[in-house]
């Protein structure tokens, strides 16, 4: 089933940032979001993931199918790599931890505490979590931060494999991942802040 955004407007801190975003994403396809810092990519992705309500418009086909990876990796420093992944696998009701570790070359690090990993290794662990969720739609916010060239290639490979199985991916990134993906620049959807009122009245107080 497709993921569809129809005339979606999103707000951050009570101020509208993007308006009128419409797109649809079919199984097996990826979409790369681009735009300068502060243009609302993260807000759009969080809205699609259901973490915040849309100002107006609709997201359809996202319910319980999204694996979200934001700026923070959701790792516990005092748990080992394997324990971190096993926890997320159990939360999402899957068990294929080994395959996820292999996909991101984490097997040699399996028993290390996540707190002792380098920034890039942590990021790889955070991305390996996507594989154990078993979810169809990957919503990724700057997934390649602190990854080296090899790790970016591993990541691109994982996304390709995911798409080949009928998955979908929405990726906000500034670098070229070498994926065969459509690109959407969010700049045209930005809301000029002068002269635009606040969102719904209570939004201003949240």
């Amino acid at each position, binding site marked *: 089933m497709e993921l569809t955004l129809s005339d979606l407007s999103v707000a951050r801190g009570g101020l509208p940032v993007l308006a009128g975003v419409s797109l649809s994403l079919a199984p097996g396809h990826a979409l790369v979001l681009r735009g300068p810092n502060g243009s609302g990519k993260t807000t759009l992705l969080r809205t699609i993931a259901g973490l915040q309500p849309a100002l107006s418009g609709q997201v359809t086909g996202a319910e319980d199918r999204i694996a979200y990876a*934001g700026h923070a990796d959701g790792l516990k420093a005092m748990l080992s790599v394997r*324990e971190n992944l096993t926890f*997320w696998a159990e939360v999402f009701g899957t068990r294929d931890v080994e395959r996820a570790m292999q996909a991101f070359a984490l097997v040699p690090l399996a028993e290390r505490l996540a707190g002792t990993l380098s920034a890039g290794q942590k990021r790889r662990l955070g991305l390996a979590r996507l594989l154990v969720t078993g979810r169809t739609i990957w919503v990724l916010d700057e997934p390649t931060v602190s990854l080296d060239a090899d790790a970016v290639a591993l990541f691109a490979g994982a996304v390709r494999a995911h798409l080949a199985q009928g998955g979908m991916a929405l990726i906000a990134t500034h670098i070229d991942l070498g994926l065969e993906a459509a690109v959407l620049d969010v700049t045209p959807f930005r809301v000029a802040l002068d002269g635009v009122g606040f969102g719904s009245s209570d939004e201003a107080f949240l």
Partner: protein
Amino acid sequence: MRALLVRDLRLALRAGGGFGLGLAFFLIVVVLVPFSVGPQPELLGRIAAGVLWLAALLACLLSLDRILALDFEDGTLDVLATAPLPLEAVLSVKALAHWLTTGVPLVVAAPVLAVLLNLPAAGYAGLVLSLALGTPALSVIGTFGAALTVGIKRGGLLLSLLVLPLYVPTLIFGAEAARRSAQGLDATTPMLMLAGISAGVLALMPFASAAVLRVNLR
């Protein structure tokens, strides 16, 4: 849900998890009270139930901001919010983990420390029972406070101010039950009220906590 509980317990027991924090605070307060009150065994015996309850409540309060703050900072809550578990269940499990790591040790330590306060022999069963009935309410209400203040850096002060009034009924009935049983009176009524408070907040608070957490995650 079991995975979340196991993970929270494991994290609490590992270095830096803060498992002993509440217990150590409880120990310190109860050990120091006889020094500050002076060598008056009968006075100590009279205030023992109230002091133990107050110390347990404050010890509980001390560890509340750890329930959600760490998971918020490292992005775990974002992922849990998109996971198949409902947030109400997540927060109930979090409260349960907090009770197991903070409330249960307090219940176990209370009769030992009550000796220091010269609690009358008749009061031990009532003390343990009232704490066992009351501390779950403290954890569940505390989880609500933690959810309310989760986005705020160092929100400990605000958390305490918000949660303390909500703790008052639990404290009143808990201490009253312990006091009455220490004096050899019938403690059934305050004990039932205490159990009622716990049952009520256990049933209702997770919904409130999840609602405010959803707002805070925006």
